């Protein structure tokens, strides 16, 4: 008996271990928008990050930080690896799936969230464009379109499978309404597609992506609650002899997953713990972004809330996670009841051993409690918002500045392109980020 208790305690300790990782060391360089320093710091902790949260998160985090540190080739290597692993995660491990039936989703390899998969292509596209490879940048936009097309189908199937499994297990307390699939196209990706197509002199694609931007705003009003940026239409016809400068600014941070715990007491010694992840947004410190070329200054307009898309796409998966959590916790509670009943039956005739039977039931509930932990894993350095803008200037060499401002109007971050050669007939794309 003592041996069993020791083994069970070890199990609790093992599975109770958190998969969270302390990234406080990133706060200072990120606050200072010092991305090369942030990348160096992250690389030093990469193994720790991987062992705690898996290879996908490691590659996503390093890929994003390399991007912001302007090491575009390295960023594509990391993001490419992450994308490949996310795709491979479709094939699930038998053993890990079986283990997750008892231990929860933390027992599985992290498969990547849909928004991570989608924005991997957005940032790979920006990487290719920064390396002067517009055709490759366009490949990433097309790949992203393909992923968006399969998204709807995937979730309808997933939820229907979970509901079937719930019915088969006799669990009634399962949400059965199909969630609406709101996110189906990224306006930011279409905006980039439009700019890349213009650079490639592909008028048909340029017009197609221009239309897609309008459609994204029109058909997904909850994801795009702001107006279509006014500069969009100007992109289609740049005056002869003039140069167009385009801006993409990222600010804030992606949402975080928080644990939502519900405890349902069946008897004083027996309870059922439901622990599932909730994705919550983070308030951005940056509320305004301005771009400046010489004396001309514009305010960049909101193009996409990456936070909103992350939460929306996760909400589709959240229901299936909730349902599997209910099924798992119920089955565990049933198991605990059986253990309790069996212990009482075996020990109850000797009155003084009744307390031991209660203790076994309590211990069994405690094991269930310790093994029910929400899977809070996700990447850390995708931005929360994207803003865009465009300015038409005479071709020439300019200092270009993107400034990030807080609610008090104080500039809290800036990105400067010194002596940028702005050319006519070229895509002069300036990107800046302030992850505050």
């Amino acid at each position, binding site marked *: 008996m003592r041996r069993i208790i020791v083994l069970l305690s070890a199990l609790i300790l093992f599975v109770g271990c958190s998969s969270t990782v302390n990234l406080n060391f990133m706060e200072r360089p990120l606050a200072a928008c010092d991305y090369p320093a942030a990348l160096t710091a992250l690389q030093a902790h990469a193994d720790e990050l991987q062992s705690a949260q898996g290879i996908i998160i490691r590659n996503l985090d390093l890929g994003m930080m390399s991007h912001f540190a302007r090491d575009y080739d390295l960023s594509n290597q990391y993001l490419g690896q992450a994308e490949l692993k996310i795709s491979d995660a*479709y*094939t*699930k*491990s*038998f*053993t890990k*799936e079986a283990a997750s039936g008892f231990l929860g989703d933390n027992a599985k390899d992290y498969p990547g969230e849909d928004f991570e998969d989608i924005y991997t292509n957005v940032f790979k596209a920006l990487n290719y464009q920064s390396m002067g490879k517009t*055709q*490759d940048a*366009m*490949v990433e936009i*097309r*790949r992203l*379109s*393909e992923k968006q*097309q*399969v998204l709807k*189908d*995937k979730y309808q*199937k997933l939820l229907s499978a979970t509901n079937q499994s719930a019915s088969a297990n006799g669990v009634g307390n399962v949400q059965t309404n199909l969630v609406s699939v709101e996110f189906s196209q990224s306006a930011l990706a279409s905006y980039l597609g439009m700019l890349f197509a213009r650079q*490639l002199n592909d008028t048909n694609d340029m017009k197609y992506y221009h239309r897609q931007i309008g459609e994204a705003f029109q058909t997904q009003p909850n994801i795009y609650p702001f107006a279509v940026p006014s500069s969009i239409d100007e992109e289609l016809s740049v005056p002869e002899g003039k140069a167009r400068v385009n801006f993409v600014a990222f600010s804030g941070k992606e949402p975080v997953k928080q644990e939502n715990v519900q405890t349902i007491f069946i008897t004083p010694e027996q309870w059922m713990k439901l622990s599932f992840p909730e994705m919550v947004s983070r308030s951005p410190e940056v509320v305004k972004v301005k771009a400046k070329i010489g004396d001309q200054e514009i305010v960049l307009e909101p193009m996409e809330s990456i936070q909103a898309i992350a939460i929306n796409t996760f909400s589709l998966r959240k229901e299936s996670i909730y349902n599997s959590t209910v099924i798992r916790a119920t089955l565990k509670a049933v198991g605990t009841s059986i253990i309790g009943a069996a212990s009482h039956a075996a020990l109850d005739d000797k009155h003084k051993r009744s307390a031991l039977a209660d203790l076994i039931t309590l211990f069994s509930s405690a094991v269930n409690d310790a093994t029910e932990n929400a899977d809070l894993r996700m990447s850390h350095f995708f931005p929360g918002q994207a803003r865009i803008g465009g300015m038409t200037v005479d071709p020439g060499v300019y200092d270009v500045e993107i400034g990030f401002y807080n609610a008090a109007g104080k500039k809290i971050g800036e990105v400067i392109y010194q002596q940028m050669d702005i050319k006519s007939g070229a895509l002069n794309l300036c990107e800046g980020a302030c992850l505050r």
Partner: protein
Amino acid sequence: MKKLMLVALSLVLVLAGCTETKVSRVSENKKIDLSGNWNDTDIQLVSEALIKDCLKGNWIKIRTVGKDPVVIIGEVENRSSEHIDTTIITKKLETAFIESGKVVTVNDVANRGTLEEERAYQAKNATKKTRKESGNETGADYILLGSVKTNLDQEGNKSVRTYYVDLELVDIESGVKVWVGEQTVKKYIERNHFKF
């Protein structure tokens, strides 16, 4: 005890063997599909078919009266959702043109700058006798253009990925297309739901 040690050691060896990277040489014609993405087998299939079709086209016969037709390799755009190096296909076609003895090819559009730079360098540094002058290049009769496109149909673990490779030879003077070839590669890809 000894038995236990042996079992443990064998287990360690087996596990160590699992992490080893194995490399083996295979024939260049062996068809190997790993991910379902565009690969060397597709390049081979598409290039062979397009070369065959192109070299039996009437455009060769028209120009062979007097002189061989001169072709310049233009751009074959990658309009797919994969990073495909289209120059592998055009290089194979160019090689076939030269080997056929019926078609002359001139420096690619993409390499023009290199030739200009070299002539500029020679103008400064080479002897008059060996210096190559500008303005003596052979003008091409036709330009080779084209594109690679993809289409994906996916449901769950099954997908059909289709590649459309089209090439065309355009008469530079008249703009008339003298040859158009298209090859399609259709792949059915099924991924496992589970692994151990």
